[in-house]
């Protein structure tokens, strides 16, 4: 009994330590975005700032003209549009294809799945060079359309794989009952299977969204102006310029992290289930 109490104390202390280690960098990022420049540049740091300020956020949201802050804003918007477009397309084709892989018998089923998986594992750097030349030839450099096309090729194998796993795990009987009641196969898919598969679809869509929101290499090469530049590229460029405006980078970083962080916390259940599906069922 005593050992068990020691164990409980130990895990609780460990949990507090983990929470601190995880939250400290986040806290520093947030802090850096809301205190004055002189507070950030003092040496050594004093732990209670002289100035609090929201000017950086104001600049990013409402600033006018061409500067880093407004660039962050348009990059956020680009990221959002590109990620949403990709999610819609890759989820649609992923659900249809995933259903075929999970429920239909046809020759080369395994080979087909394998072929999609191989493309998922191909390192982007291998496709980058010819893809760049190709995108340039079609006049799609520095456009959101070009980026969506490329991102769909990244997200689709993934959504195909997760959706086929998820749909395959649903009981087949319900679908069969619906078919006996006279629904066509497609009717059963849309009226019976998809409503049941909602958790899987949500998780898959969220993963795809995060994948696009996080993507850097393609966006770095294929975009150059506020036309299509996504938020990771905007932040990396500004960081790389060796600017001293750390506060603005921090504010941009906070804003860029908000969508994925909020989505993850709100849909935590789905994420954890999605991860388990990936880990256990493959």
């Amino acid at each position, binding site marked *: 009994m005593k050992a068990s109490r020691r164990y409980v104390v130990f895990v609780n202390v460990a949990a507090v330590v983990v929470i601190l280690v*995880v939250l400290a960098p986040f806290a520093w990022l947030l802090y850096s975005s809301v205190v004055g420049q002189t507070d950030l540049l003092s040496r050594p740091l004093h732990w209670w700032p002289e100035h609090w300020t929201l000017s950086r956020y104001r600049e990013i949201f409402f600033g006018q003209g061409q500067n880093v802050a407004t660039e962050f804003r348009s990059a956020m918007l680009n990221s959002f549009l590109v990620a949403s477009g990709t999610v819609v397309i890759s989820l649609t084709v992923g659900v249809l294809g995933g259903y075929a892989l999970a429920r239909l018998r046809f020759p080369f089923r395994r080979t087909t799945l394998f072929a999609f998986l191989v493309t998922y*594992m*191909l390192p982007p*750097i291998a496709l980058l060079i010819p*893809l760049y030349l190709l995108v340039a030839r079609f006049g799609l450099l520095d456009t959101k359309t070009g980026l969506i096309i490329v991102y769909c090729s990244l997200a689709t194998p993934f959504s195909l794989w997760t959706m086929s796993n998820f749909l395959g795990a649903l009981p087949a*009987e319900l679908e069969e009952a619906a078919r006996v009641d006279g629904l066509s196969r497609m009717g059963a898919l849309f009226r019976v299977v998809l409503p049941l598969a909602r958790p899987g679809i949500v998780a898959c869509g969220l993963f795809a969204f995060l994948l696009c929101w996080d993507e850097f*290499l393609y966006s770095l090469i294929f975009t150059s102006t506020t036309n299509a530049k996504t938020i*990771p590229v905007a932040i990396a460029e500004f960081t790389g310029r060796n600017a001293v405006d750390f506060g603005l980078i921090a504010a941009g970083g906070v804003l860029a*992290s908000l969508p994925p962080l909020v989505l993850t916390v709100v849909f935590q259940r789905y994420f954890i289930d999605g991860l388990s599906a990936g880990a256990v*069922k493959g």
Partner: protein
Amino acid sequence: MTRTVATTEPAPPTGGAGRRPAPRPRRFAALRGGPGRQARLALVLLLPAAVVVFGVVLYPAGRALVISFLDVDSPFPGAYPFVGLANYTSILSGDRFWIAAEHTLYFTVVSTGAELVLGIGLALLLAAPVKFRWLLRSVVILPWALPTIVNGAMWRWILNAEYGVLNSVLVQLHLQSDYRSWLGTDPFLALNMVIVADVWKNTSLVAFFLLAGLQTIPRELYESARVDGAGPVRSFFRITLPLLTPTIAIVLVLRTIEAFKVFDIVYVMTGGGPANGTQTITFLTYLQAFSAQRFSVGAALAYLTVLAILVLAMIYLRLLRQNEMRAV
């Protein structure tokens, strides 16, 4: 797969073959459709996905292989000389590739190893009777959701040589006499700091993967082990670890593939420096192709990466199949 088929099979009729219910044959036919019809439907359903993926992937993948045998030195179309394996031999005989390979290998082994060890501990903690378990889980998932570039920029700022918070804390605690440059002077230190940032972010994902594996281990095993007088350490090594091995293997291969491709975090934290000390293979490929415009050398480097990853992917798929067998 076998499982779904098994459930749709009609149960053997108990009352002899003669009393088979009449609607069954019709129902069976309606459900299955002809094999030809199913294959056609599958083709129609898979076609959009195939267009979206292979339309973008196939040509570039083949083209990159071709480029790696030519000498392409500009982004414009034109006739470029065929040089055979010259790009590959010049890469493999030069120092830069091997140095970058060494960095990549070091990064991969150390970051994956650390993430695995910490991830196992964290997974056990996530499953343990902690007071605010939901809070712990919500917090632990956060680094995974943080965009890689923001993570890199954040650590770059934390580790800043002149104003960084890490320097300030260490000096104020008298653990360090003066501010030091974490990313700017010592290449090996810089590489290790990049690893710290990567581990901080990715341990979270590893832990949740392993937690999923942990939850499939039947509780009774632990109880009977306790009855037999085994302590927590013993039951960890005798029950948890062996039963977790399939999940660990999958996580290990997946993380290895990811770590092997590392680019973003290096780009934003160190830009490959100092003294090229954090240059990885993907970073070198990027530099060759897009800074030096040596597209062919870049393509050859990329194909060397593909080869390495293909080997890892084979291992991954084999492990998956083994797991699937075990599940059925």
